């Protein structure tokens, strides 16, 4: 037995092998045709730049497509998917090796390579496929999680995969048994089948059975390949492509501006208005349901389901899209009526009701293993409803009315933009001889200045800045809403007006550095104002304060150093600071400065944080009492046993205040901004003459 001569006969026991090549032709033809149809559909979409920054794209591709970075975050599904995924890759390589060995002069399938890779490793990975498919079957048919879509197609895919792996081992086992293969030990799984069959079957039976099963295996495999482009198995190709062409700018910058002078329609209500990348998104969906599983609106029982929005749009594209996209050429210029096929439909997942319950928290996009962009599509549809149809919930209407006539969303507030400064002696840009003396603009935000419970937060922030000796000023009455709520609800026109106005004001004072305690303002300034010519160095107050503490300008060992009083604090990540802008550490670093306090984390925190329910204009909408996102989140915070729920956003503060009051029971649980807690810890300052509260 010379291992260097080890090999096996390709097509052992098989006659008419030419038939394999004949069958391969229609198989590959159908496969190619299916993908050609898809590519033709995508190409009819509107333009999008997604083949730039190739280096970054390749990295993302390696991490999340090849490396399955996001898929494995769900433990069970991640495990069985990895088993099947790696198994398929190795089995594909093995088939390629066979082809090269048999059909080219390169007879590579021999020796140690044959034994170690082609026999042992391939057997192990084949087993991976078998086990992976079995685990998936248990989930689909036994544990049945609600997030899955239970289609016959999905079941047949699973059965096909299992059958392909199983029949592969059967033919291998019977070949080993009949030929008494001396290298049998190198194929442990196949050998197991051989040993199990030997006492039960005669060699002749196995030889006959081998022929039958071998052809059956081939037909299933070829059928599967031909079926790939027409089923969700197409994700094997569409998902990696989707990941490669993903949005690289973060969720915070994922909404695009509209050219109001030239746009034929505002927002999207027509298949033909989507970009090719949007259409690719629809085809990349694997129906895993993770987006809907983490959606706050869906969690509390609302009709919004990001997964179903994508799948309903996919179905629309598949059923009626070809004529629309092909004839309409995507821009409505061709076969007009067909291109105007509406996507917003009361009877589907893309209903106005569902669209207007989105908090724009981006949990869906963070959860999606294949980087589908649900949020911009939801906002685009909202844009259509708001700007073309003037259709939206009443609370949003009041908010927009107030934004239009008062430049803030809080109709009926009893406070002016400067009331909170009382006794603090804070510079207002307009009253300064030289506004350039202010190194930092403290952008207060409507939520900070005009809502009573948040005035303490902005006071604390201002006092901390003063204590650290930061030369800052505010805009006072010249400040207006950043426009975030207008943009999220879909009123891009109003957002653009507010944004341009603010850029003009900031440029007039030569502002370079902006600190704000509202993550929504922070996100707009940081990611969206550059679209309107405003580029600033923007900090959330927790980031800026963290720098001040780090550089020693804010001593944390003040008189209130033990302000924590042995209390437990849990931090609620604001969506627009965390997921949208990737800042998770600064607020936690600051909380660590609150001596005598202990931090605990909620189950859903950092990038999997659960929205307070206030984003996307939802803070202004009256939710049904049994469908309140803020109460769901408040319950989670209360369940940690924390005494203090720390926040970093005026919207989170009001939403969680309400929620905690409804859910805290007899326990005393406070909601406080990180700045308030830090001020307590830093203690009194002579400059302001105010004691820590």
């Amino acid at each position: 037995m010379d291992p260097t001569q080890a090999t096996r006969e390709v097509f052992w026991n098989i006659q008419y092998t030419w038939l394999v090549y004949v069958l391969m032709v229609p198989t590959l033809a159908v496969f190619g045709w299916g993908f050609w149809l898809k590519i033709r559909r995508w190409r009819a979409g509107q333009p999008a730049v997604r083949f730039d920054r190739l280096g970054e794209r390749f990295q993302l591709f390696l991490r999340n497509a090849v490396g399955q970075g996001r898929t494995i975050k769900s433990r069970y599904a991640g495990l069985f998917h990895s088993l099947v995924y790696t198994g398929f890759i190795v089995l594909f390589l093995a088939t390629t090796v066979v082809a090269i060995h048999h059909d080219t002069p390169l007879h590579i399938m021999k020796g140690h390579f044959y034994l170690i890779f082609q026999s042992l490793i391939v057997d192990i990975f084949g087993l991976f496929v078998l086990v992976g498919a079995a685990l998936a079957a248990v989930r689909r048919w036994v544990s049945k999680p609600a997030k899955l879509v239970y289609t016959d197609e999905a079941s047949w895919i699973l059965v096909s995969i299992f059958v392909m792996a199983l029949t592969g081992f059967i033919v291998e086992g019977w070949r080993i048994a009949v030929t008494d293969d001396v290298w049998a030990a190198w194929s442990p799984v196949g050998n197991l089948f051989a040993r199990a069959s030997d006492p039960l079957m005669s060699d002749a039976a196995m030889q006959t059975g081998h022929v039958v099963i071998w052809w059956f295996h081939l037909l299933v495999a070829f059928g599967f390949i031909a079926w790939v482009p027409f089923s969700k198995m197409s994700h094997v190709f569409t998902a990696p492509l989707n990941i490669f062409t993903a949005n690289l700018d973060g969720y915070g910058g994922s909404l695009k501006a509209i050219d109001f002078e030239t746009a034929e329609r505002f927002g999207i209500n027509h298949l033909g208005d989507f970009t090719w990348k949007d259409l690719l998104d629809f085809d990349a969906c694997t129906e895993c349901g993770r987006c809907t599983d983490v959606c706050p609106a869906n969690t509390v029982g609302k009709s919004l389901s990001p997964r179903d929005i994508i799948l309903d749009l996919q179905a629309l594209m598949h059923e009626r899209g070809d004529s629309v996209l092909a004839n309409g050429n995507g821009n409505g210029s061709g076969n007009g009526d067909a291109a105007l096929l509406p996507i917003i439909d009361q009877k589907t997942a893309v209903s106005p009701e569902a669209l207007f319950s989105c908090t724009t928290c981006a949990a869906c996009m963070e959860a999606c293993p294949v980087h589908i962009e649900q949020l911009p599509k939801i906002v685009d549809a909202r844009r259509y409803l708001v700007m073309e149809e003037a259709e939206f919930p009443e609370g949003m209407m009041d908010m927009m009315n107030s934004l239009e006539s008062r430049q803030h969303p809080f109709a009926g507030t009893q406070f002016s933009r400067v009331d909170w400064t009382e006794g603090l002696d804070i510079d207002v840009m307009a009253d300064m001889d030289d506004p350039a003396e202010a190194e930092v603009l403290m952008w207060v935000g409507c939520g900070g200045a005009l809502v009573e419970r948040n005035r303490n937060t902005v006071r604390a922030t201002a006092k901390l800045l003063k204590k650290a000796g930061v030369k800052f000023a505010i805009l006072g009455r010249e400040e207006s809403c950043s426009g975030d709520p207008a943009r999220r609800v879909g009123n891009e026109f109003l957002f653009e007006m507010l944004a341009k106005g603010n850029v003009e004001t900031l440029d007039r004072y030569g502002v370079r550095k902006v600190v704000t305690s509202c993550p929504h303002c922070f996100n707009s300034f940081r990611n969206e104002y550059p679209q309107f010519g405003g580029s600033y160095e923007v900090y959330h107050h927790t980031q800026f304060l963290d720098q001040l503490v780090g550089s020693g300008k804010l001593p944390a060992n003040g008189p209130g150093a033990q302000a924590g009083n042995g209390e437990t604090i849990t931090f609620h990540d604001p969506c627009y600071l965390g997921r949208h802008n990737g800042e998770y550490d600064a607020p936690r670093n600051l909380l660590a400065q609150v001596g005598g306090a202990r931090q605990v984390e909620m189950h859903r925190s950092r990038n999997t944080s659960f929205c307070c329910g206030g984003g996307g204009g939802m803070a202004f909408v009256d939710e049904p009492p049994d469908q309140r996102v803020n109460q769901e989140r408040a319950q989670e915070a209360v369940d940690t046993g924390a005494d203090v729920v720390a926040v970093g956003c005026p919207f989170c503060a009001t939403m969680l205040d309400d929620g905690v009051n409804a859910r805290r029971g007899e326990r005393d649980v406070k909601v406080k901004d990180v700045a308030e807690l830090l001020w307590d810890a830093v203690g009194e300052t002579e400059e302001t003459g105010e004691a820590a509260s």
Partner: protein
Amino acid sequence: MRVLVCLKQILDPDVPARDFEIDPAAKAAKRGGANLVTNIFCENAIETALQFREAAGDVKVTALCYGESSAEDCLRKAMAMTVDEACLVEREGNTNPDAAAVGQVLAAAISRLEQDGGPFDAVLVGRESGDWGTGQTGGVLAEELGRPALGFVESLSPGNGGITLRRQTDVGIEVAEAEPPFVVTITNNEDNVPRIPKTRDVMMSYRKPLQKVSLADLGLDGDEIRNGFSSFEVEEIFVPTDEVDCELAEGDTLDERVDQLARKIHEVVASIG
């Protein structure tokens, strides 16, 4: 049919109390940081007119405002809400003409608009303004035009030959058949909440023509309007102050405190006499 809606631009009534200041010399509210908005009942009147147009079909809605140049914003917004045409009678200077003067100006403007485009079947005026709140303009205007008037109307709909009006009264809803031309003052109800304009209409509103006329164009003497028609004079204007004098009833027991409280009430009542 033609319907006319009269609008007034006022200081935002939702301005926070602390931002509201009076200029005692001018005997008027200071503009301060407050915004200028369309009086809410006037917006209800626009919405009512638009709903009438939607129900009746062939109706042209015109908006008319007597105000400073800033009032152009109110008329643009009315056009964004899809009012067909708008006319601004320019008011010079920061004056607060009373209802008699305003009625005179509006009547002259209406006559001019009717010369050009035919008679208005209905003239709609907001119930009262959010600043002075005298609620007289509608009545005065009807008198000036010599047309019948009805107050507190909440909706107009096409009727048998005329126009059916629903008006709010102390005892319930009154339904009236009115034969044009007439003047009505519009009050609010849940159905005439002013619509939010579609963005495309907002953009288009800036491209629609806006007619501007001066008092002289209408053959009116500006000085006379400013000075001569006032049926009353403002003596003084001030923000009322709430003075609270709080005293806690003392005593060690509840009974003692109740006694103390009762005694105090007697004293206060006696002092008022």
